[in-house]
């Protein structure tokens, strides 16, 4: 029978491997049966309280219980919205105001914060609702009414106007994604994941879903270890972790600090990475340390559910070469389109557009921005066929592999996070002492600079930005200007500012 709900992954595995550890963190671990029971109890409770087909916020630390809460929300027919305890309060308030969730599930660490927030809906404590009575009939009833285009989650990404965008993922798209991801990466029951990415992005699906599907296991790595490379590798070895799906900056953190001279990962066999271009020098350090491991470059925007293209490193690269993003997963199609909505000639540049079941339902509560990004395929004027315009510019190399070149707009990637420079500028401009603001990113040095004019000092502006922006969006340098430079057609001269930001730093051999 065709699978229509991701909970079927859990339900099949719990019968086979009830007592195997599914997820673990520094605070404890949970077996598949514990996850299943907890999720069913949470689902039953939400249903009893009348929540159905509504957003439910999960506001918890990174721990196995958080994943159980996600699944519990799905059992009720609702969809989960992960928020992180490290997000600044202002951002959380902005999201809640937009979202108006039916409920919010917290843990002891976040309860006090949650109680002080507006628009949370009913506040539940995980420990209270994960042990309640399970009403199997009610859960079955919900399942009978569910279809595979119903939502699973909303994850929030940076928005250029200063308002975060909530991307809506559904069962069908996630199943399509996970089945094809598993085929390419060859996960199985013996896969042991070391999870690096936070749970509030769709990136964590790469570990959570295959774990449920195969009865594999996932260790949620403590954030603190990503400041201690030797201890991080010791952790991988102690837990016999054999598979990583990390952001590039977490991998280069290990290799650039010459960790392998001291210690090597003993069990790693599959290393997948996403979110940024992997610098070849760093990749080569990894490949030399682990000559028998598979290295796979993944590419894909949140709007088309996780990852949609992959390239398995199958040859040597020199430092001036670009690692391709390769080709789409089965059942996903990539179209390159030029500025006139036409396919560029062979080898030519174009915007990467994605076609397939993978497309999410767009941005929650924002039909207008959804319609700008999810559009009718311009190559087809005969029937309705949506494509997602990524804003990424790519081309095919002479081997026929897709290569990512640049962005069309001011979206950047920093430390694995997707950031709209406009969101930083909009936060700065909201300060009464700022007249104009422009932020630029130096990809080579990984450095965000904010330029502004106004009568506030840089050290006064920084604490203000800290209240509004997540840590990864904070500029590393804030520079006041007497006047903002403009181009002849009246736009802020970003190129000039970018070269100014680059000149202020000594060149570094990275």
């Amino acid at each position: 029978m065709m699978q229509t709900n991701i909970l079927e992954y859990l339900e099949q595995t719990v019968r086979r491997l009830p007592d195997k550890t599914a997820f673990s963190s520094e605070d404890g671990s949970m077996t598949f049966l514990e996850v299943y029971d907890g999720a069913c109890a949470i689902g039953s409770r939400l249903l009893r309280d009348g929540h159905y087909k509504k957003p439910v916020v999960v506001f918890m630390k990174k721990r196995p219980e958080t994943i159980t809460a996600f699944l519990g929300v799905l059992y009720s027919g609702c969809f989960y919205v992960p928020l992180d305890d490290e997000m600044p309060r202002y951002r959380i308030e902005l999201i809640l105001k937009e979202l108006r969730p039916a409920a919010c599930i917290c843990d002891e660490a976040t309860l006090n914060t949650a109680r002080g927030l507006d628009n949370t809906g009913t506040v539940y404590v995980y420990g209270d609702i994960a042990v309640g009575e399970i009403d199997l009939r009610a859960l079955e009833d919900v399942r009978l009414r569910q279809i595979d285009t119903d939502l699973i989650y909303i994850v929030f990404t940076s928005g250029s106007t200063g308002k975060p965008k909530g991307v809506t993922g559904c069962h069908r798209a996630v199943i399509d994604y996970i089945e094809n991801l598993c085929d390419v990466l060859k996960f199985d029951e013996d896969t042991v994941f070391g999870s690096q990415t936070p749970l509030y992005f769709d990136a964590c699906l790469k570990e959570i879903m295959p774990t449920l599907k195969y009865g594999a296991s996932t260790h949620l790595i403590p954030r603190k270890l990503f400041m201690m490379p030797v201890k991080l590798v010791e952790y991988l070895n102690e837990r016999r972790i054999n598979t990583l799906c990390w952001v590039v900056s977490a991998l280069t953190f290990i290799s650039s600090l010459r960790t392998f001279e001291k210690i090597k990962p003993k069990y790693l066999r599959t290393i997948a990475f996403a979110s940024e271009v992997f610098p070849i020098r760093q990749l080569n350090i990894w490949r030399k340390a682990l000559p028998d491991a598979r290295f796979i470059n993944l590419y894909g925007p949140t709007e088309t559910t996780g990852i949609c293209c992959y390239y398995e490193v199958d040859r040597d690269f020199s430092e001036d070469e670009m690692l391709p993003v390769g080709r789409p997963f089965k059942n996903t199609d990539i179209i390159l389109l030029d500025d006139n909505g036409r396919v560029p000639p062979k080898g030519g540049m174009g915007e990467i557009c994605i076609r397939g079941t993978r497309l999410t339902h767009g941005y929650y509560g924002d039909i207008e921005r959804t319609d700008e990004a999810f559009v009718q395929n311009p190559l087809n004027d005969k029937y309705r066929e949506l494509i997602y315009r990524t804003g990424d510019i790519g081309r095919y190399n002479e081997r026929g592999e897709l290569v990512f070149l640049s962005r069309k707009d001011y979206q950047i990637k920093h430390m694995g996070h997707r950031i709209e420079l406009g969101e930083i500028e909009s936060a700065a401009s909201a300060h009464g002492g700022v007249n104009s603001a422009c932020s630029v990113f130096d990809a080579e040095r990984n450095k965000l600079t904010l330029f502004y004019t106004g009568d506030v000092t840089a050290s006064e502006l920084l604490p203000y930005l800290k209240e509004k922006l997540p840590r990864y969006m904070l500029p590393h340098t804030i520079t006041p200007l007497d006047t903002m430079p403009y181009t002849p057609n009246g736009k802020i001269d970003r190129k000039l500012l970018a070269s100014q930001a680059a000149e202020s730093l000594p060149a570094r051999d990275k």
Partner: protein
Amino acid sequence: MDKLIAILKDLHPDVDFAAATDLIDGGVLDSFDVVTIVAEVDDAFGVEIPAEELIPENFNSAEALCALIERLSDD
């Protein structure tokens, strides 16, 4: 020590690095900061901090980091 504080201030102008003692444990520095500090220390002092020295005890305060740099430059 002043040179080191200037490097740290550059990363987080609002932190009192002369007094803070929980830069890692308190979440002031993140992994991006650690990578930057290692590179800056190499530039400014000619000292390469080996991976095994990247532990909270050496990074929790400017004083501890300063002691680490001195120890490494003696070797």
